[in-house]
């Protein structure tokens, strides 16, 4: 039960002689020991000795200090914490999938290959882009793959080019990715609503002039390999001049990468391939409901235009149509093609996070074209409902129309010396997971709220009522909020010491 609070590290529970696993009787001669003496395993310092029941209790009790999607709204902006259907888990656990070996001959894994091919077809139609790879393990891996495609494209036409443009409202993975792909990052200034500024902007604080898109394209021209643009952007606003942006970049043959983390606002409503995107990634662990698992695994498939297809990672999944008799439905067979001379190579050891891809296809089939669009619209309605109920109590900072998420600022509360962090921690006392905070960086004290389509009116109201109650508390008793959380198992943590004197593993006392 949740009343007994402390759960020690299992290492402190270990007792010599206990065991949680029994081995099968060995039915062959014991191993001859051919190891050189210095390569024999000497022993372990931490592995605990516990019985099965103790291990199960440990992880059961620990789980109770977490908050999950089934506990209620999980409004982390940009993370799309939607319902994780159990059907997807059940399907991904089918032995036909889990027991299949990645090195098995194609003929023996036709089901897997058909699964991959079918998912690719769905993603093509959803994004409007004809090329797909499912290998990247997460969004960042997708970004890296995408930028490497851009690089391969330019190399194939003579020079890799030098620069990638990234708006200051972009996610940290964007610049980090560009760097890993050997590019120099030039920052694009964005307007208050996170959209890209075409014109130069003068920093109100230090008066410095920051070059806008037009100037940068004029000055850098063919030095620009491409731009990484998040759309809808991290403020939840659609980059409404996207077509102009891509046209401008294309004019110098620079390519447009779209960070698709926010695709949950577009599926069935608008297709990146239709508004000028050359290459993008999807976070299936966001848009397609695959569970986040406390940090992963995810899946970050990359979709691209025709001219980038030749560079996609190997192997690619191909479908051959088997000859069939008159009027019969055509039969198909599938194979992995490793022979793609222009390919950038492999970006994952095998074929990506296959089990996650299975869940994503299951999600797609469950929703269908109609359900996907309905989900998108509902996600947008939910975000705008929260926006409507909370504006006034919290500063909206911008009034461009919100799509699937809404970003507030703590400026109204800051007057009482209460800040975003305090608000977030108080939400925990009320039994809610806090929204994403202090991101995007361009919004002062950002509170980024993404309810997703999975919330009903009652849950949205309960959350909004709580947010309003907190706003009221800020007026009446601001000091109290600095103490939050007070009802959680722990109070605020000393993160400074954690970083200054890092303790990163248990060691025998």
């Amino acid at each position, binding site marked *: 039960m949740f009343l007994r609070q402390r759960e020690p590290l299992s290492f402190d529970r270990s007792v010599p002689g206990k065991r949680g696993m029994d081995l099968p009787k060995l039915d062959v001669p014991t191993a001859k020991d051919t190891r050189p003496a210095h390569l024999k395993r000497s022993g372990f310092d931490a592995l605990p000795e516990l019985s099965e029941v103790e291990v199960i209790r440990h992880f059961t009790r620990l789980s109770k200090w977490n908050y999950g999607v089934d506990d209620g709204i999980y409004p982390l902006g940009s993370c799309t914490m939607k319902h994780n259907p159990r059907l997807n888990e059940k399907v991904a656990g089918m032995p036909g999938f889990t027991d299949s070996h990645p090195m098995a001959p194609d003929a023996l894994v036709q089901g897997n290959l058909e699964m991959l091919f079918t998912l690719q077809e769905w993603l093509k139609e959803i994004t409007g882009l004809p090329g797909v790879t499912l290998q990247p393990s997460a*969004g960042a891996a997708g970004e890296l793959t995408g930028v490497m495609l851009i690089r391969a494209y330019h190399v194939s036409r003579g020079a890799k080019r030098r620069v990638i443009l990234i708006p200051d409202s972009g996610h940290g993975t964007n610049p980090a990715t560009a760097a890993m792909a050997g590019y120099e990052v030039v920052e694009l200034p964005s307007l208050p609503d996170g959209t890209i500024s075409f014109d130069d902007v003068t920093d109100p604080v230090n008066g410095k002039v920051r070059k806008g898109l037009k100037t940068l394209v004029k000055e850098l021209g063919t030095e620009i390999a491409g731009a990484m643009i998040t759309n809808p952007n991290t403020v939840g*606003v659609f980059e409404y001049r996207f077509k102009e942006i891509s046209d401008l970049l294309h004019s110098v043959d620079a390519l447009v990468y779209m960070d698709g983390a926010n695709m949950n606002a577009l599926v069935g409503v608008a297709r990146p391939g239709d508004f000028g995107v050359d290459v993008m990634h999807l976070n299936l662990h966001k848009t397609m409901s695959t569970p986040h698992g*406390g940090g992963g695994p995810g899946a970050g498939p990359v979709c691209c235009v025709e001219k980038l297809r030749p560079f996609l990672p190997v192997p690619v999944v191909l479908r051959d149509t088997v000859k069939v008799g008159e009027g019969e439905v055509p039969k198909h067979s599938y194979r992995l093609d490793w022979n793609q001379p222009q390919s950038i190579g492999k970006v994952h050891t095998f074929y990506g996070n296959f089990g996650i891809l299975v869940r994503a296809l299951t999600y797609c089939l469950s929703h269908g074209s109609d359900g996907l669009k309905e989900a998108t619209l509902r996600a947008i309605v939910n975000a705008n409902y929260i926006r*409507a109920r909370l504006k006034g109590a919290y500063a909206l900072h911008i009034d461009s129309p*919100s799509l699937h998420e809404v970003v507030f600022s703590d400026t109204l509360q800051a007057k009482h010396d209460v800040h975003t962090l305090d608000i977030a921690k108080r939400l925990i006392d009320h039994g809610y997971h*806090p929204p994403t905070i202090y991101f995007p960086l361009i919004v002062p004290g950002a509170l980024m709220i993404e309810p997703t389509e999975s919330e009903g009116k009652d849950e949205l109201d309960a959350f909004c009522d709580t947010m309003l109650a907190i706003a009221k508390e800020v007026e009446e008793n601001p000091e109290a909020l600095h103490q939050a959380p007070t009802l959680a198992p722990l109070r605020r943590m000393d993160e400074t010491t954690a970083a200054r004197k890092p303790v990163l593993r248990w060691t025998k006392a």
Partner: protein
Amino acid sequence: MRYLPSSPAEDRALLDTIGVPRAEDLLSGIPEALRLNRNLDLPTQGSEQEVAWQMMDLANKNTRFCAQFLGAGAYDHFVPSAIDAMISRQEWFTAYTPYQPEISQGTLQHIFEYQTLICDLTGLEVTNASLYDGGTACVEAALMAVRVAKKRNTVLVSRGLHPLYREVLKTNFAPHDGLNLVEVGLKDGVTDLADLQAKLNGDVAAVMVGYPNFLGAVEDLTALAGPIHAAGALLVSVTQEAFAFGWFEAPGKAGADMACGEAMSLGNKPNFGGPFLGFLAVKDAHKREIPGRVVGQTKDLDGRTGYVLTLTAREQHIRRDKATSNICSNQGLVALRANIFMQLAGPEGLKGLAEQNAAKAQYLRQRLLELPDMQPVDDQPFFNEFVLRYTGDYAALQEACLKESLLPGLDLGRFYPEYQGCILWCATELHTRQMIESLVEILARVPATV
């Protein structure tokens, strides 16, 4: 749609509060011209029953085996039922990255325990919350070595490294014109010391070797460490079969400066190659160069012990283009599976399993060698994989095995021309003597070379 909590009345109320007649009106931010003015050309929604059957049909199109003698980076081990039972608690599998420590102590303490155990397995001091897989872990290790070594731009990679890991390394080094990836050849199934020495120079940041390598042979890290350290380079041990940590000495204790690789063997099925579990463990001195999330122990305002994400100054969301890596989401839940597996197994279980794997592989090798058309290629110490030369026709052998629903070892020629006609065999605790005997029996009946 069963997943959407929609009802006409409530949906109306939502829109009224927002102040728009129709949900579509909220798309005003998207220019008409950029919208999709048709329905997606895809099937419409499916009931749970229909979708479950559809996916079941796909799963059933894969051939099932009663035994797989194939490893090569994806190992079939027994997975205790407690693991699925635990990770399927929604508190574990649906949670996000533990950004808010007060409401995420479960995940944070698990990661801290997982980090402790990876350090224990590898004999090193610092690791992270996980990386994508073996191949990308090699990339992160190589790039980190270059950062650590400063001004050294070459990474030597043993040909004994998993060929697909080497492919992933190539892909990721390509963009860096300043960096070189150089292969070191093999001799008798292990890294060729002479070739290594020849290629070691002041520009070499690190040397990566398989431990055990792709051919199943154990590399003598201690012997290799000498010349490598003498040249001022780092020795990176790459392990693709984590069960080997129960058999061979911890790389950190045998001379490696970094250990990385694939830990899927700890509580996972082959899963057609993913989700798997990349890991990277390093020395304390290098901790601020490690990529990915790291959890640290600290105290709350009342002095109670707790856990938080730490050393974030290395990460992309703070450091942006100066970050140690771009990784954000990792393989968290797979790390949880590994953590549970290791805690169930304990030291005795892990060693016992390793002993059984070694015993089964040795027995398999001995029995196979009794066949006229199987010959040894070297006799390096190995763990649960080994190479034999097959004078017969692999295709015929494969066909014979499949008929009895056994999956034979890997045709090594596919990745190593010099091992044309050789097969990489694997046996684990899942292979009963009877399975091994029936394999041998089947092979005995394969028509001689065509």
